[in-house]
Every structure is written in structure tokens, then in C-alpha cells.
């Protein structure tokens, strides 16, 4: 027996420790337990992650062909009575406390502004989109006096805060950007009218009327 083969045999015996031999299929378990274990794994992964986890990553810890959605539905069913839930965010899932408990959390602990790691420029572009939507890249360039980096826009789109809106009716049909419902949720706005500036407009307008 070669050294390599010995090593492989050794690894086979100690399960779980090593990623390479991580047992996804769990074939030695009865079906019921196997499903439970998969649910547990997904829940654990989501619990351990501060950011949304995509389907591909979750699929890696469960059996081939097991539906991540169905597993998550089953976990959701278990969580029904809990003050937290799994929510689909930006193409993945994450744990979130139910909004009903927001005041309780704020009262008990000063949970400061969640850091979304926005750069100043990202924040600026996001604001421009929020106030001037639908707006295309040319429109953003007019506001900022320079071309806006496509990567920056992609990052905002990846975070689920903006989406591709209507096409601009001009040559090349560039798509515009609009904010998403996720944007509203992130900044705790009920609608775009809660954006500060629009309120000022409203006051001005009622003043004139």
C-alpha cells in the first residue's frame, strides 16, 4: 500500500472533518433522518452567515438533486412560532428577526445602523437613482459630471437594491435603473414618498396651492 493510499483510507475513516470528503448524500441514513440533517445543515449555514447565502452554496451541503427551496420551506414551517425567519434576499436567503420585534430589539440593545459597506460613491449613485428613477447611465453621468462605473452599478444590482427598469427610448435603448422593494426594506421606507426630499416638495406644493 502506497503512502497516498494509506492517507486516503485514513481520511475516509474520519468523517466530516475534511471538506474534500464531506458527505453530502448521507446514504447510510434513513430518508427521514437524511432530510432532517440536510435541513439542519442549511439552517446552520444561514445562521452562521451575516450576508445572504445563494442557492449554489446551499446546494453544496445537501444531496445532489435535493431541492433547496423545499428544504427551506420545511425549515420555515418549523420556525413558524419563532421570532425570526428565513427571508429571500438578493437571490439568496438569510435569517432575519421578524419585523414585529424591531422595537423590542431597539429598546433592549442599541443595534446601530447595520453596515452595508457602501462606499460614498455607491451611496451617492443609489440616492441619485432613488430620486431620479428611472434614470440611465447617461442621466447619472449628467448628475455626477462623469461616467459611472458599470461595476459599481452591478454591485448595487447584486445587492438587490436597484434593478433594470424601462428602456430609455433613445438610440441603443439603454436600460434605466430603478430601486427595488428590497431597497425600501433596507432603508426602512414604506414607499418612495418617504424619501426626505419628496416630502419637502410636497410641503412646497401644498404651500403654493
Amino acid at each position: 500500500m502506497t503512502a497516498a493510499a494509506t492517507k486516503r483510507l485514513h481520511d475516509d475513516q474520519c468523517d466530516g472533518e475534511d471538506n474534500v470528503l464531506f458527505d453530502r448524500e448521507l446514504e447510510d441514513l434513513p430518508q427521514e433522518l437524511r432530510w432532517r440533517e440536510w435541513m439542519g445543515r442549511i439552517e446552520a449555514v444561514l445562521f452562521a452567515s451575516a450576508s445572504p447565502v445563494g442557492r449554489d452554496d446551499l446546494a453544496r451541503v445537501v444531496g445532489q438533486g435535493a431541492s433547496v427551496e423545499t428544504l427551506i420551506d420545511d425549515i420555515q414551517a418549523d420556525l413558524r412560532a419563532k421570532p425570526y425567519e428565513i427571508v429571500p434576499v438578493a437571490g439568496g436567503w438569510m435569517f432575519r428577526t421578524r419585523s414585529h420585534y424591531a422595537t423590542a430589539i431597539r429598546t433592549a440593545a442599541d443595534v446601530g445602523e447595520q453596515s452595508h459597506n457602501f462606499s460614498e460613491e455607491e451611496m451617492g449613485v443609489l440616492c441619485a437613482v432613488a430620486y431620479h428613477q428611472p434614470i440611465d447611465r447617461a442621466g447619472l453621468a449628467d448628475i455626477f459630471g462623469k461616467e459611472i462605473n458599470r461595476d459599481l452599478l452591478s454591485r448595487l444590482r447584486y445587492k438587490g437594491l436597484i434593478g433594470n427598469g424601462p428602456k430609455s427610448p433613445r438610440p441603443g435603448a439603454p436600460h434605466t435603473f430603478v430601486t427595488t422593494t428590497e431597497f425600501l426594506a433596507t432603508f426602512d421606507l414604506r414607499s418612495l414618498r418617504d424619501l426626505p426630499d419628496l416630502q419637502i416638495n410636497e410641503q412646497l406644493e401644498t404651500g403654493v396651492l
Partner: protein
Amino acid sequence: MTYQLTVIPIDRSSLPKLPAWVTSTRAETPEYMAFLSGASFAILDTLLCQSNDAVPMTLLANTLALRAAVATSKLEGRMATEADIRDAYYLTPPGDDGIRHRGPDGEVLDYWRNTVHLRLGHADWMRAIADTIHERFEDAVETWLKTAVDRSRSEGPLAAATRIMRDVLEADDRAERVACLLSDVVLARFFGWEHPLPLTALHLSKSNLRDLKEGTGEPAVHRAIMQSAQKTYRLATTLAARAEALRAITPKLRTRGSEDAVALFLREDAVAPSSMLAPTIRGTTTSMTARAARRFCDRLVELGVARELTGRSTFRLYGIAS
């Protein structure tokens, strides 16, 4: 022996005009107002309940949805024009996730187009309406609707409509569109219409709603709703004539699939040839090339039955309604 059903003989191209005394704007007493709005709704209801297809109902509903969207945008302080709203709605392709991100201007039209398809005929209609409305009102919607329906039987539809608007605005003074929708639902239920028609929003102003919330604005809102009923009557007769004109020239259209395309024009107030006629005509499996679609639309304009709505040379939209 068979009998032919009696249908009110109605010359499609010349539906009766509103009598001048109905449109009198000098109504200053509540009694006179009530009299005129009763007359306006009676004549509108008679027209809408015609069993022949003189009035293209879907086209009417969609046209009203666009107008309500413009009115709602004004009430919400966004001031989007008809053109802004149409562009946002019709030029948004589905995103990667299959969802269309239409933005605020497209969404408001989507809202009204969905509401005109709500069904009021079935047993569970209140629940269905409550479900379509933003979750923030939860069970209140059903309670409001129940009260309003009872009230409409004893106090009349307009009093019930304004009452439910007040209920909504007291709960959330930024829910103008919900207030208008529920008022439309109460009216439609009272008249026995199958779907709500967006009438309430059309002539409202912000100050109307503010006064209504403070309990002084009822007469003004009643007047606005009456004006909408009259406008809708005129719109319905105009659309009937336009539809008749389109049907009359249909034999002249030689394009393959032109019948389905004409049917689409009889339903939709705006048609984007590149996405709604090509590659297949919406709602059918009939295929049409983009070029054929463009030529078909231009032909309709040439024949004087449709109009190009945007004034652009590209990304055009065509319709028979405006």
C-alpha cells in the same frame, strides 16, 4: 316558436350624447348635486350594461386605468405625465429574475390595470380585494368594505364611497390609491358591475382628500366622482365609435394575423409593435415579424383609425383610444 330578445336599438356610431341638463355645472345645492349624479350614473350604467359589444369594455377599463394612474401620480406628488407612465410600463423588459422592475411610474399603471380586472361577482370578493391591497391594513379592509356596502344600501353609493375613503385616509393619509380603489369597488358593487372602474381618482385634487379627511370635503369629492361618471360616459361613446371604425376597415387589412392584431387594438389602449405584436401577437400564438408589426400599425394610422402616441420615430406606441 322563438322570440328574439329585445335589445335597445343602438346605432353604434351615434350613441346618445349626455343631455345638456346633466352636465350643468351650476349645481350648488346638495339636492341638485345628488339629482345630477344620480342621472349621470343611470345613463352610464345603461350604456355599460348593453349586452351588445358596442362599447369595448376592456379598452375602456384600460384607458381609464391610464387616466387613473396619471391622477394618482399627481395625488402622490410625483406628477408623472401620461407619456412617462406609458413609457415606464410598456418599455420595461422582464429582468433576469423574470420580474419587471417598472419603477414608480410604471407600477402605478400596473396597480390600476390589475384593479380593473378584480372580480366582484364571486362570494369571496371582499377577501380577494383585501389580499390585493397592501398588507399594512390587514383585516381592516374587509371591515371597511362590509360597512360601506351596508351604508350604500341605506345612504346611497356616493356617501358610502366617501366614507370608505375617509376610513382609509384616517388609517394612512398616504394611501390615496387604496382610498380611490376601495371607493371604486363600493360604486361598482352598488351598480352590480363585474369589475371596478377607476372613476374616483380621475378628478380628485390633493386638497379634496385633505378636506375629506378633516370631514369637510364630502360634497367636493361627490362632485369629482360625478364628473368622472360623465367623462367616462363620453369616453365610452368615443371608444365605441373608434372601435366601430377599426372594425369597418378590418377587411382592408391583408397582413397575416391581422384579425388577432385588430382584436388586441380593441382591448389595449397602447400597443408596442415590437413587443406586443412581434414575435407573436399577445394573447395568441399567431406570429408576426417585427417588420410586419410596424407596417401593420402604420397602415392603421394611414387609414385614420389609430394614432401614434409618442411622437417619436422609434419605440413607438400605437392606440385607437386617444
